[in-house]
């Protein structure tokens, strides 16, 4: 698929929050790969599995040639048996290993749902904390080129609903590596929900081992007028819109939660207390999804600060259509984000 034509490769914006400017700039897949590489190097119990992790493209580059360095025992291809293999990853984790299970699309996680939800997410709780399941499941949302209804689903809303799972959505190269390393160290099941659009960016990443804490958001741009909370590649889109709106004297704060569960409520609530106006941006479905949950949390905990109804920008409640004219109508991006910000900004109740 000519993914290159859907989105060109670009440098990430220089977010005000990064204090690592003198490091090298690498591609997103190199950043993920470096995280996995260092985890494999540091802990002999870490291993990598998944369909195609050892193939020439190596999971969009994220696992490329790792089998050559660490051997086929520790980096292995699997049969197409997502249900059983998730169970086996859970078993291996209980047995003391630290699996990282790669899936090239979230759509295939539906097949693994029973093991993820009925088993992995509950084991620690159900047995009174006797054992836990240190398992990382990595997956990457597809978009465009007629990927259609079964190859482009953004399932973070679904997984955000499940207690016992940590849910991570990186948006920068720096975080992709640091959150991967945190996920591997974590003693719980962690799902990393990445996005193919993220793989179109280069960013600044230190070569040493570091972690980005799970459960901590970050302010990508400070502002006083409107708080935008956006996930994954939509952080960058929101950031550009926020920059654009500076010329209209609208000062937007952009928050990247980075983790959806546990959610960094504090960083959001502090910002809402300051701006009183909120837009939430997510590439998943709207109903009962990420935007719904974060809105409810804000209304529950910061109602007195709100000066306008919360704006939500999310994909419509429909399966993804194949056709490109329909995709154009379906997906959200900068124009929708801008419109929502203006609406919330200008609201006078």
């Amino acid at each position, binding site marked *: 698929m000519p993914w290159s034509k859907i989105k060109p490769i670009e440098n990430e914006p220089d977010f005000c929050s990064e204090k690592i400017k003198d490091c090298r700039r690498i591609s997103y897949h190199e950043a993920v790969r470096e995280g996995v590489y260092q985890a494999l190097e540091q802990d002999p119990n870490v291993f990598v599995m998944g369909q195609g992790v050892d193939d020439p493209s190596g999971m969009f580059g994220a696992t490329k040639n790792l089998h050559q360095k660490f051997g086929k025992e520790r980096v292995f291809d699997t049969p197409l048996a997502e249900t059983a293999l998730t169970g086996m990853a859970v078993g291996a984790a209980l047995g003391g290993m630290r699996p990282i299970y790669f899936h090239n699309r979230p759509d295939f996680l539906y097949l693994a749902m029973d093991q993820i939800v009925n088993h992995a997410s509950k084991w620690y709780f159900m047995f009174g904390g006797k054992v836990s399941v240190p398992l990382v499941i990595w997956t990457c949302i597809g978009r465009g080129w007629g990927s259609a209804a079964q190859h482009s689903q953004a399932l973070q809303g679904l997984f955000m609903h499940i207690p016992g799972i940590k849910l991570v959505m990186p948006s920068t190269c720096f975080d992709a590596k640091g959150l991967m390393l945190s996920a591997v160290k974590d003693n719980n099941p962690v799902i990393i929900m990445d996005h193919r659009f993220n793989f179109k960016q280069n960013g600044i990443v230190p070569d040493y081992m570091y972690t980005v804490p799970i459960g901590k958001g970050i302010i990508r741009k400070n502002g006083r007028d409107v708080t935008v909370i956006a996930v994954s590649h939509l952080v960058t889109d929101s950031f550009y819109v926020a920059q654009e709106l500076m010329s209209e004297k609208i000062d937007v704060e952009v928050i990247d939660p980075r983790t959806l569960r546990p959610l960094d409520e504090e960083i959001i609530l502090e910002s809402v207390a300051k701006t009183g106006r909120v837009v939430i941006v997510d590439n998943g479905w709207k109903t009962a999804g990420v935007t719904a949950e974060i809105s409810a949390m804000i209304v529950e905990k910061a109602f007195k600060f709100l000066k306008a109804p919360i704006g939500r920008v999310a994909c419509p409640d*429909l399966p993804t259509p194949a056709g490109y004219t329909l995709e154009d109508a379906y997906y959200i991006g900068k124009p929708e984000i801008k419109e929502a910000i203006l609406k919330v900004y200008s609201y006078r109740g």
Partner: protein
Amino acid sequence: MKISNEKKLELFYEMLRIRRVQERIEALYMNDEMKTPVHLCIGQEAISVGFCSLLQKEDYISSNHRGHGHYLAKGGDLNALIAELHCKTGGCSKGFGGSMHLIDVSVGHLGSSAIVGGGIPIGTGLGLSSKMKGSKNVSMIFFGDGAADEGVLYESLNFAMLKKLPVIYVLENNQWSVCSHVSARKAGENIFHKAPSDLLFSSKIDGNDILSVYEIAKQVVERARNGFGPSFIECETYRILGHAGSLSQDPKGYRDQEEIEQWKKKCPVINFQTILIQDQILTTSILSEMEQRISYEIDVAFSNAKESPLPTKEDLYTYIFCE
């Protein structure tokens, strides 16, 4: 088994037609007018043609992401296929499905899944519906060696055996699942480990030999139609082109060119053509007439597809719930 010369020509024509359609898609794909991931079935034509040639219009098929051949062999409309690849309203799924989601209800094709293995229980359920309605229709399921990794195959087979369903499981073992060879995913030689023969008829055949396919298909379709239950046929074949898109987009270095060349020698279309010419069943004039007819039909399908309107944003909400 005696197969008439007309039948042989018919089988050849169908294979040639699917081959030429695939080749045309491959040739034009990099023009970026078909904005949907295509999975071509060049090298596997004998399987869909041989098996579908024994089905009635009302019989069901269940197909997968690599489904152009199944669709055409079952009698699916070529114009609607090509329009779907162009994501146009004239497409079989009106531009909502793309290449991996083909359908032609009028010939018993009720839609293909792009989730590997997803069509296996659905095809089994179509067989259940036939049985419950007391109809004589059979259900034929096409799936790959990758799909045979999925546990749902075993669950479906068990149920089909339990209920003696009129279902034919056709495994197209084309050796590869994306860049993963079958030997990286299966222990031993046989994909399916046998069930007692009264419960399940099973066999492994050369899927590139149209006459072997036809012969076994006749047996299993009769068996299913007459209430003797399910069959499982493993067809050995090979995916000549890349996994998806045009060959130029296929990752390099996961398989040897030598392997591809060996399998090209076993080409189901060319080999059958040679036999038919040797046996003086096919003449060069019949062949060129076939080629012309096919080429014309493909030209028409592509030009119709180009003229078919694009769906618009007003169409997006059309299919939420069926009234």
